[in-house]
């Protein structure tokens, strides 16, 4: 239990209301742009001031509107990795890193040299940030943040500005550099893949409100809420009508489903991830006759927009299937029927 916050802030047409309780390890905040996730991170760092609420880091109250406590960012000992790294453009690598140093000035030079080595920046000491590659810039920003030995580190969309190949390398680098870090880490992202890869705990934000917090895998498995399912990348939804304790009728797909668990009365929607539907040969329970509306060929998978063949006006849904090789034609893989495995049907409420 390292970080605890409960903050409110009002803007024109938007209000932020987040409650968080950090567990050990890496916490993720996943939300669409404009969901208030960066604002939350900035409030923890002290860059933004919430209207009301409380923020506690390792038992230290850094913000409390009732007791009128509001520590300056300088005093919070929170490391913040900015999306664009925010390196000081007119300072060399060495000087940038020295800026993060806190403590006895006599030990500064030695410690800066140590961090330059640790983050593989040897030989770049006298370079300016503009002379560095994206990866090197990120390492300078990490070194500058870590040299001050922060109690919590906050990562603000650290990979969103990078392209595919470099992103993979930097993600691995970052994991290596941060694996010895003992404090807590909160990462903000809009990418479900990054959230899944980095974070053991996840909080989902939507329109400034927290919808769900929990263990990452569990959230992806059982998002519980329609908005949560959308944030974790699920694309297929249908409104449902409950027909029995284990039966729902998907109104948009015009299809009856058998569900393993008991269906509660709060359930309004059913969802399924495009990857989990399986081809089937014949009609039966949880099976839909396939009518293809559109193909999209992705690099490693086929993507189909399909519709229930037996219902003309039904809403189409996405089905993804792995390619065997590049020669394969998109049409070859279209089955007559698709099976919706009951264990992958997500029951959702609003």
């Amino acid at each position, binding site marked *: 239990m390292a970080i605890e916050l409960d903050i409110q802030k009002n803007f024109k047409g938007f209000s932020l209301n987040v409650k968080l309780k950090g567990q050990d390890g890496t916490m993720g905040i996943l939300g669409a742009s404009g969901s208030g996730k960066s604002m939350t991170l*900035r409030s923890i*760092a*002290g*860059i933004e001031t919430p209207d009301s609420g409380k923020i506690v880091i390792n038992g230290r109250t850094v913000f409390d509107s009732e007791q009128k406590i509001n520590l*300056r*960012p*300088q005093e*919070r*000992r*929170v*490391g*913040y990795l*900015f999306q*664009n790294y*925010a390196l*000081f*453009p*007119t*300072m060399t690598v060495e000087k940038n890193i020295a*800026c*993060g140093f*806190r403590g006895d000035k006599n030990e500064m030079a030695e410690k800066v040299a140590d961090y330059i080595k640790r983050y593989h920046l040897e030989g770049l000491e006298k370079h300016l940030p503009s002379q560095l590659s994206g990866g090197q810039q990120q390492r300078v920003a990490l070194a*500058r*943040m870590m040299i*001050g030995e922060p109690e919590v580190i906050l990562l603000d969309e650290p990979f969103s500005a990078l392209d595919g190949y470099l992103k993979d390398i930097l993600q691995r680098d970052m994991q290596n550099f941060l694996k010895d870090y003992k404090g807590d880490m909160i990462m903000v992202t809009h990418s479900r893949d990054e959230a899944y890869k980095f974070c053991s705990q996840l909080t989902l934000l939507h329109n400034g409100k927290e919808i769900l917090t929990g263990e990452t895998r569990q959230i992806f498995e059982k998002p519980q809420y329609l908005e949560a399912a959308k944030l974790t990348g699920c694309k297929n939804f249908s409104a449902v009508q409950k027909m029995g304790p284990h039966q729902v009728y998907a109104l948009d797909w015009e299809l009856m489903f058998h569900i393993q668990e008991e269906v509660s009365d709060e359930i309004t929607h059913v969802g399924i991830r495009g990857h989990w539907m399986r081809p089937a040969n014949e009609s039966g329970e949880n099976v839909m006759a396939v009518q293809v509306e559109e193909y999209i060929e992705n690099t490693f998978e086929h993507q189909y927009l399909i519709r229930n063949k037996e219902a003309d006006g039904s809403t189409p849904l996405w089905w993804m299937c792995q390619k065997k090789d590049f020669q394969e034609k998109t049409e070859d893989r279209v089955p007559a029927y698709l099976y919706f495995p009951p264990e992958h049907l997500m029951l959702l409420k609003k």
Partner: protein
Amino acid sequence: MPLKRQKRQLRIQQNNMGEFLSEINWTPLWISMKTGVVATIIAFFLGVFCARKIMKLKPGARAIMDGILTMPLVLPPTVAGFCLLLLFSLKRPFGKFLLQNFDIKVVQTWTGCVIAASVIAFPLMYRNARAAFEQVDVNLIYAGRTLGMSESRIFWKVIMPAAGPGIASGTVLAFARAIGEYGATSMLAGNILGKTRTVSVAIASETAAGNFDMAGFWVVVIILISFLVVAAINIVSGRGMQTRRWI
């Protein structure tokens, strides 16, 4: 024309030129430069200070304050001179107060030259500094704060260098404006040779007196200085930037 006569003519001209130069009273140039330097220093710190303060204001207050601070740039200099005269006149409370308590006289003195030039040069410094600050990524400030740097260290070590080219060109423009200032200076400081007569004041009064040679000479001096100033801006603000050509 025989060669001998031509040579003699030339020698007379040279003598005239030498005589002309040796008879010049150089104090206007000296006063202009001295005023320019001091006024630029004042405008620099005041401009940077105000630009820094204004960056912290909310948009509404910012627009109003910005309007007030920019006034000396858009008003005719004579209006600024009139206002300064109202303020510093020895017959009025503030001017009297300064004279009685600090023995400071502004009207018809070099101090008046400096104050007039500072007021007129200030908006140029302030506006350039503000524009330069607006270009600085605000995340740099936040990064400095989370790293534990003090506000003044962030300002002088991070923001000022990052805003460097804009600040530098503001300074040069302010200097150029300060050495060329005429309207407010002539109203507040007057035209006392060796004391408050700057080059621009000299040009006006020599022309009025029909001394076109003398006025012309000062005009050439001002043109040269102004050209140097503009060239200096281009060199300073172009440094570190890729010069992109429109082709």
